[in-house]
């Protein structure tokens, strides 16, 4: 039993990782008070940037950073629309998704069918020798290890630094933050651009570690799952880890269930993650409508005349 369960759990961590990066990114953006539905678009641009830069420089780490930069750049576009021009956040986010997916498709055409070095499995000395835990968590690639640290850094920043508290203030009550001498618009810029950076990193995981390939549409809806997971996680990083691995687990499990010869219609299994998304959204709103949502989420800051 264990020898079947271990690969499933290891695969769970792997397929949860890109979603985890993206979820944390969107969480940062939303906690600063801006809703960004462009996650799918930022993620796929990140995947392309990572692939192209790694191919050009031969360094996957540069590719990884380039993915963040590309995501941040798209985030800046959203910030420009919403924070400077007071655009509707939902509309701008949706446009960003359509724009990102289309642009990646267009720019990425010449790279289809090529491979780049990327990240390979890298066992952590000592830790990988641990029974069970070693197999699941410490025989992964470097980007997975980075993703272990990320939620902790996120939590510490939001809870223990004045910057994190200020970002939360901009998301909860921008007018009060402004009265307290903070600049909520600047803080929201930080949230949107920084969030875009993290989302871009999630895209890099797909094209550099999960596979070493690029193809149009390779995010395949993972960005949307991240948007749902932010609500599922009630805007808390710890629960984001749980949610991302839950979704990754279902994805890994349904394929293995088929491989084990379970006589279940595969369509039903493929529906599971999405069915769960709907269920989670319904359940969280039944518990009293967006528990823990930043109160200023989705509301633009009207400039003082």
């Amino acid at each position: 039993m264990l020898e079947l369960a271990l690969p499933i759990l290891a695969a769970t961590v792997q397929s949860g990782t890109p979603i985890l990066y993206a979820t944390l990114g969107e969480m940062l953006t939303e906690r600063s008070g801006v809703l960004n539905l462009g996650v799918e678009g930022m993620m796929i641009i990140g995947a392309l940037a990572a692939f192209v830069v790694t191919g050009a420089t031969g360094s996957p780490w540069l590719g990884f950073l380039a993915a963040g930069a590309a995501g941040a750049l798209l985030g800046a576009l959203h910030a420009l629309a919403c924070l400077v021009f007071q655009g509707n956040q939902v509309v701008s986010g949706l446009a960003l998704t359509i724009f990102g997916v289309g642009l990646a498709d267009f720019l990425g055409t010449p790279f289809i069918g090529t491979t780049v070095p990327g990240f390979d499995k890298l066992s952590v000395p000592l830790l990988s020798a641990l029974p069970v835990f070693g197999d699941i968590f410490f025989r992964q690639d470097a980007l997975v290890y980075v993703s272990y640290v990320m939620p902790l850094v996120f939590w510490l920043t939001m809870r223990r630094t004045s910057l994190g508290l200020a970002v939360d203030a901009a998301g909860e009550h921008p007018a009060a933050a402004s009265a307290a001498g903070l600049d909520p618009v600047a803080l929201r810029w930080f949230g949107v651009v920084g969030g875009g950076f993290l989302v871009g990193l999630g895209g890099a995981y797909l094209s550099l570690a999960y596979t070493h390939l690029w193809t149009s549409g390779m995010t395949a809806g993972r960005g949307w799952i991240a948007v749902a997971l932010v609500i599922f996680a009630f805007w808390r990083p710890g629960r984001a880890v749980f949610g991302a691995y839950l979704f990754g687990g279902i994805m890994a499990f349904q394929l293995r269930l088929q491989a084990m010869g379970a006589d279940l219609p595969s369509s039903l299994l493929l529906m599971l993650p999405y069915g769960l998304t709907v269920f989670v959204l319904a359940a969280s709103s039944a518990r009293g409508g967006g528990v823990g949502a930043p109160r200023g989420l989705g509301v633009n800051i009207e400039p003082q005349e």
Partner: protein
Amino acid sequence: MRKFIVGIMAAALLGLLLAGCSSEPQKEAPKAETSKATEQAAEQATPEAKPEGAETKVGFIYVSPIGDAGWSYAHDLGRKAVEAMDGVTTSYVEAVPEGPDAERVITNMARKGYKVIFTTSFGYMDPTIKVAKEFPDTVFMHCSGFKKSANVGNYFGRMYQARYLSGIVAGAMTKTKKLGYVAAFPIPEVIRGINAFTLGVQSVAPDAEVRVVWSKTWYDPATEKEAAKSLLDVGCDVIAQHQDSPGPQEAAQEKGVYSVGYDTDMSAFAPKSHLTAPIWNWGPFYTHVVKSVMDGSWKSESVWPGMEEGIVDLAPYGPMVPQDVRDKVEDARRKIVSGQFKVFAGPVKDQKGEVKVPEGAVAGDEQLLGMTWFVEGVIGSTE
């Protein structure tokens, strides 16, 4: 008031972006037409210098970019064979989505005076039939569908024959007697391929089993690689696939086991594990069709040629395939080509042990085209 203006601006921005996206294939079309492959032809003959109609123009429409190393790439190799013919120029449009876009692209090509247009994806079927009505002087050839009209013919190849041969290789190389098949969608074409592969495996390893995982994708490297890994986890030591991405090949190589590709030679992606691949070889068929249109002998028909026409084949063997296995495969190939051996010759039983093709009988084309059951030895669901 301010909000109202902002709303309009946002709407305009969205509209702009949408327009930007939808006009993209148009931008791509000329780029594709002046691409490298056609440059040669342009150098040889300046169209204006020649009388109208001196060159037969042949067009191809692909569903994915030709760089995919898969389905569309295989068709494009066929196009290059046509390009090499005397008095023929070709061009192509790649990454054309199935649906309204396809209709526009096909119409565009027909209007530009193309004599023969190959539409190479199932979803182009209805657009092809529709456009063909407006251009009765143009010959349309649609791949993998079932509709035809006065100037529309359809064609496909008997890929299952090559799948059977690749099954022999896989069956000879497996040690665990467990083989994995990363399958695309549960439609007759894919099921037929899995069955033929399994029969090939069983011809050399009678007690082997083939496990099937559906990815429900045609090209999603991440999911397909994960599906292959799930098969490796349950002990499969040869991975075959139906999708166009090399994701499953990568998974097999990382695990140090063997793999069988599809569409074209995928050995570049996994040189250590790639045994062979059932591949498409459209060149001979495409040149034949273009020739028959040029000499006026073309008729609208449904054709389903196989290995005897060279339309399907095996990619070169990897160095790990021993000579006696190669001999066995070549022997089976000769018998298939000569018609002496049929892949779906009875007795063929389904998963429940029910006889589907009785002893002495051979499955007819109708049964092959409507195949929705797995042969004995396949583990998986056809739903």
